[in-house]
């Protein structure tokens, strides 16, 4: 039985990854799961300089999920290179670094710094965070803006790049095609859906930022639909995410067209989720006599 998947020339021991921002750099969850079991750790977004993020409250629970408006708080690339990369290097798993910025230059700055680090296998470019005022999502909701930043980054990146797309768009296929045309080696989708919660007794927003990114099982059907649509619009591989809680969820995304999947908010609900999914996929493959996990990609009956 072969659970390996290869994206843009990078081979992962299995298709199970962590969604950026929900797993830090693995340190906190290494107390619960063996990081060596994961296909990859996708780190929390890192910028060229430290970002303080948004005021609190930053998180709120919603039906079947949560809202967050962390605002991409991060210690900056210097600390990240000194602390997080060396930590992750101890493990036999691939490292994908999520890169964020407020301007094209910010992104390029980080991308070039990471270019010198062979331990980093791929770069996931966050152009879809709904919680930061400048940059970020501005690049992710207009096809031409996405095309431009993708091609700029592709020119300078030493590692294959993964553009992480926003679901807050009219047509995900248009965005997927723009990223592919600009040279993106893979796509991650979906990022969070912009949501809002109001406390009716205090008549206040549940989150200081007013809006927050919605994640969790509640958004899964929207994510599966977008992965299906995008996978039929582009040839580059897709990392699917959005409310994945079980191996069945992971397989659903693969059947829809994802080549790999990421576990996000559910890490908070069950810190063992990632490894349970790795085991659950193997169980499913045994049950149905599937030799290669890649046979599941896009295998839904049309």
């Amino acid at each position, binding site marked *: 039985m072969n659970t390996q998947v290869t994206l843009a020339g990078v081979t992962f021991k299995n298709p199970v990854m962590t969604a950026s921002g929900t797993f830090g750099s693995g340190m906190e*969850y290494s107390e619960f799961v063996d990081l060596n079991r994961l296909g990859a750790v996708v780190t929390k977004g890192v910028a060229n300089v430290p970002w303080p993020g948004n005021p*609190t409250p*930053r998180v709120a629970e919603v039906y*079947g999920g949560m809202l967050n408006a*962390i605002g991409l*708080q991060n*210690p900056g690339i210097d600390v990240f290179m000194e602390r997080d990369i060396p930590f992750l290097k101890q493990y036999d798993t691939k490292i994908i670094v999520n890169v964020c910025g407020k301007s094209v230059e910010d992104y390029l700055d980080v991308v070039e710094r990471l270019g010198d680090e062979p331990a980093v296998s791929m770069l996931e470019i966050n152009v879809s965070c709904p919680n930061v005022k400048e940059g970020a999502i501005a690049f992710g909701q207009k096809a031409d803006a996405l095309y431009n930043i993708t091609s700029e980054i592709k020119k300078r990146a030493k590692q294959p790049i993964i553009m992480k797309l926003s679901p807050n768009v009219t047509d995900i296929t248009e965005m997927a095609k723009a990223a592919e045309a600009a040279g993106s080696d893979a796509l991650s989708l979906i990022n969070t859906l912009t949501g809002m919660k109001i406390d009716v007794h205090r008549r206040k927003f549940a989150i200081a930022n007013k809006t927050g990114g919605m994640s969790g099982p509640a958004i899964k059907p929207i994510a599966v639909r977008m992965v299906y649509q995008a996978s039929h619009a582009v040839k580059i591989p897709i990392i699917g995410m959005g409310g994945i809680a079980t191996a069945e969820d992971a397989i659903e995304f693969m059947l829809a067209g994802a080549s790999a999947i990421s576990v996000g908010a559910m*890490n908070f609900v069950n810190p063992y989720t990632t490894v349970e999914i790795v085991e659950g996929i193997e169980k499913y493959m045994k049950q149905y006599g599937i030799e290669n996990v890649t046979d599941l990609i896009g295998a839904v009956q049309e």
Partner: protein
Amino acid sequence: MKEKQTATVLSQVEIAPAIFDMWIETSLAAQAKPGQFIAVFPKDRSTLLPRPISICEVKEDKTALRIVYRVAGQGTKEFSGYTAGDSIAILGTLGNGFPYEEAAGKKVFLMGGGIGVPPILELAKQMQADKKVVVGYRDSKTFLKEDFEKYADVVIATEDGSVGTKGNVMDAIRENGLEADMIYACGPMPMLRAIKAYAAEKGIKAYISLEEHMACGVGACLGCVVKTKEVDHHSHVNNARICTDGPVFDAEAVNI
């Protein structure tokens, strides 16, 4: 070592309106420290995030934990329905806890307000010092009062004046002309701000336990942060994680 596990409810009683007192049989009791908390997960799958609840007491033989919490929403409402023998999903133990050793031989206020009162109990049990427990309640429903009296003098303040000083815990200290070399406190933000100011004015150290909306509870999501005076080792942007770097902080070190 943090762990998520399915534990067993030993007992539960409502000790004040909407305030529930639950004993849980769990191996986590062996590592529990005063001021730490556990995350409790609702079973209903529409409410997924864990509810952080402070540890009120640790059973002497280290086989069980006591939590005292207020029913505030869907999740805590579910917990309040659990009875002896029911399973309960918990993650813990979380947070740093109170550095109670520092109080050795000192005159200390152990202060709690409202649902911030419970964590003060195990602290009062563990601490070797000249302790005075100063706790504030809304009204005459002074839950845990009898428990505190086993370990220290208890001074009470109530918002409606039905018991002790009318007002808050600071009013109680003034009214009784109390003095201390150190403070350990948990309660609502206005109370903690008042204590921080009081400690600064008196030039004494105060350890306060903070609260914030949490998601992961283990320091990964950066949901529950507090602004710190100095650049902290983790965020490097003066944002300490309440769930992991806290919930207990030197009042001096945080901007609240």
